């Protein structure tokens, strides 16, 4: 086995890495054991157990966590060879991982706030094999992290020493994009569409919910003034305004949290390019330095929800090969975590940067073709909406009043509006050697991908589609899959022929 070679120079991370292992343990604990813990605590509280014994239990968990983290740190070793990173880890279950440089998708150097004063960093290596098998070297000197990154990305001389002073850059990196504080705030507001749904929903239902809530709050804290304000007939309007105001203020905390999160993560965002390697640098307390090679990009995704549309901004994600890439044959796709973000772009910037990421891609000149409107609408309404609406209306109709049956046509009318809007957004196109797929409802998501990077193409037809000369086209990329439903069969066939032509006529590596 290669790892048994005595010439290999196994290294240890800094003792501060213990903090990294503790945070990782805490995160895993919260994710896996928290529900059980809450249940246990509830049981303990219900029984006649005293607080000191509960506290002792908590202390035991903390002690186990800290000692497990210290052991993990002690057992963790890494080694860099000519063409691979080797890692030995695990306390009970020992594991040795070998990741070849050419399998590495992207590299992130993080400087958490507790490591920054000591000049230490975390180096995360994402492989094409699996999201779970991401390697993190926690607590290595920053210059070593930078040099390691350069070595891995350039595939040049191996590292034999760990006391490297300054990283060596082949050329001066070119600045592609810098984001101001304002841009990052806008990104924070536009990143999560669901957040705005909650705000809108909350605003609509605020009156009733807040009235009940305020009642409880007021009676609990004996806020008689507030209670009388809210109840008295004379000042009903004032009371209502107070309630709505308070609820809205509470709801607006959500976007605020999102903005703070965005600022913490993306403050001082800078995107540079050095030869074929992109680097993004950002973060307020903890600095993140992420690198990716151009040829690893499988697709560029433009995302613009309705808030982003209002601001006239587009968020771009670069997708690289994700989990279950065939190297480990038993694995399922875990998700498209492997993304590289370019936030809050003006349309012109988005077009220019897309052309930078995918050379020759003219994303401003896409003639999107739509799919068959009648059949797409009929199928989506009939298969997805009708059962749902009927299901929701049938019980009240039988149990309460026949009048609920009237809600069905009204709801179907609304559903038709939604489906029609989705149909308007749904489109596909080809410009040069790039494919485009657009989806959306109020917002828009456009995926751009080099046709030669397509992994597999499926064409599927139901008997009805067959009769109507239509088909569903599914394009499988190494990062994710895209489906264009209800295309004309002729178009689906042409798209497939063209993609296969690009795939088969080139030797360019897709990975």
């Amino acid at each position, binding site marked *: 086995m290669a790892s048994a070679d005595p010439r290999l120079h196994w290294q240890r991370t800094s003792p501060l890495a213990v903090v990294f292992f503790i945070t990782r343990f805490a995160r895993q604990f919260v994710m896996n054991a928290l529900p059980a813990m809450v249940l246990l605590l509830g049981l303990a509280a219900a029984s006649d157990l005293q607080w000191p014994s509960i506290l002792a239990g908590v202390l035991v968990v903390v002690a186990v966590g800290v000692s497990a983290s210290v052991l993990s740190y002690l057992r963790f070793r890494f080694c860099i060879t000519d063409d691979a990173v080797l890692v030995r880890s695990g306390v009970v279950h020992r594991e040795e991982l070998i990741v070849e440089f050419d399998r590495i998708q992207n590299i992130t150097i993080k400087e958490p706030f507790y490591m920054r004063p000591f000049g230490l960093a975390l180096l995360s290596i994402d492989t*094409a094999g699996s999201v779970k098998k991401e390697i993190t070297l926690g607590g290595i000197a920053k210059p070593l992290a930078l040099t390691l990154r350069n070595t891995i990305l350039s595939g040049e001389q191996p590292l034999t020493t760990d006391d490297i002073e300054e990283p060596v850059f082949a050329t001066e990196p070119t600045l592609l994009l810098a984001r101001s504080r304002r841009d990052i705030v806008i990104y924070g507001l536009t990143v999560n569409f669901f957040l705005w749904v909650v705000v809108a929903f909350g605003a609509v239902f605020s009156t009733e919910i807040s009235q009940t809530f305020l009642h409880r709050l007021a009676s609990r804290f004996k806020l008689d003034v507030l209670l009388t304000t809210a109840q008295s007939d004379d000042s009903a309007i004032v009371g209502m305004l107070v309630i709505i105001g308070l609820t809205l203020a509470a709801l607006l905390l959500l976007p605020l949290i999102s903005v703070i999160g965005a600022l913490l993560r993306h403050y001082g965002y800078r995107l540079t390019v050095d030869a074929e390697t992109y680097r993004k640098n950002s973060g307020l307390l903890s600095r993140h330095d992420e690198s990716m090679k151009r040829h690893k990009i*499988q697709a560029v995704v433009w995302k613009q929800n309705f808030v982003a549309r209002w601001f006239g901004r587009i968020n771009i994600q670069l997708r690289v*090969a*994700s989990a*279950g*890439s*065939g*190297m480990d*044959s*038993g*694995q*399922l*796709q875990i998700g498209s975590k492997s993304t590289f973000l370019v936030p809050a772009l003006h349309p012109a910037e988005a077009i220019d940067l897309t052309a930078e990421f995918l*050379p*020759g891609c003219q994303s401003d000149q896409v003639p999107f073709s739509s799919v068959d409107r009648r059949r797409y609408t009929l199928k989506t309404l009939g298969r997805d909406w009708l059962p749902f609406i009927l299901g929701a209306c049938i019980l009240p109709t039988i149990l309460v009043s026949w009048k609920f049956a009237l809600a069905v046509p009204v709801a179907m009318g609304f559903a038709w509006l939604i489906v029609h809007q989705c149909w308007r957004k749904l489109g596909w196109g080809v410009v*040069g*050697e790039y494919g485009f797929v657009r989806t959306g409802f109020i917002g828009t998501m456009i995926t751009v991908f080099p046709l030669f990077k*397509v*992994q*597999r*193409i*499926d*064409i*599927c*037809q*139901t*008997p009805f589609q*067959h009769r109507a000369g239509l088909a569903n086209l599914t394009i*499988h*990329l*190494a*990062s*994710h*899959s895209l489906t264009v439903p209800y295309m004309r069969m002729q178009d689906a*066939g*042409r798209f*497939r*022929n*063209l993609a*296969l*032509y690009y*795939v*088969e006529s080139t*030797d360019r590596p*897709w*990975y």
Partner: protein
Amino acid sequence: MAFLNLQIDTNDLPRAADLEMEPMAPAYEREVLTQQLIVWGIVFLTSIILYLVGDKPEMLKHFLALLPLAALLLAMLIIPLRIKQVRVKAIALREHDIAYRSGLFFRKTVMLAFNRVQHIEVTVGPLQRRFGLASLKFFTAGGSAVDLKVDGLMRERAEQLRAYILDRSGSRGER
């Protein structure tokens, strides 16, 4: 590398839709039939045992008497459909890719270029061994566990296909 962007006439491209599909081995039909007979035989026997064994109320007994009949009817419905499904399955090999057609009602054609194949697996189940059959599994990047599974190939044919495709999949064959 100089960037080229030549215009391509999509009408002149090789057309995957015009392929002559090659049906699966005749032994595959026999294998599926045997497999179905075994499954439905078990269901039928279980329903008879349920009827015969133990004391039951009269109502339940009548109901259980219907079960073997229902199993027979279902088998008579499903077995021909499974056979039809087998007859739909077909593959076609081109110089650079493979096409696989399947699905009785939802007709699906998968096209996979050889230079996107990461590795190939040949698997032989106990029943397949009896009929000299094998399955061919293709793995590509990013997709689910198996990207394309072709059942109903004669064992030698499967091995031959694997060798042929790996030969054309470039340096990234089976590792």
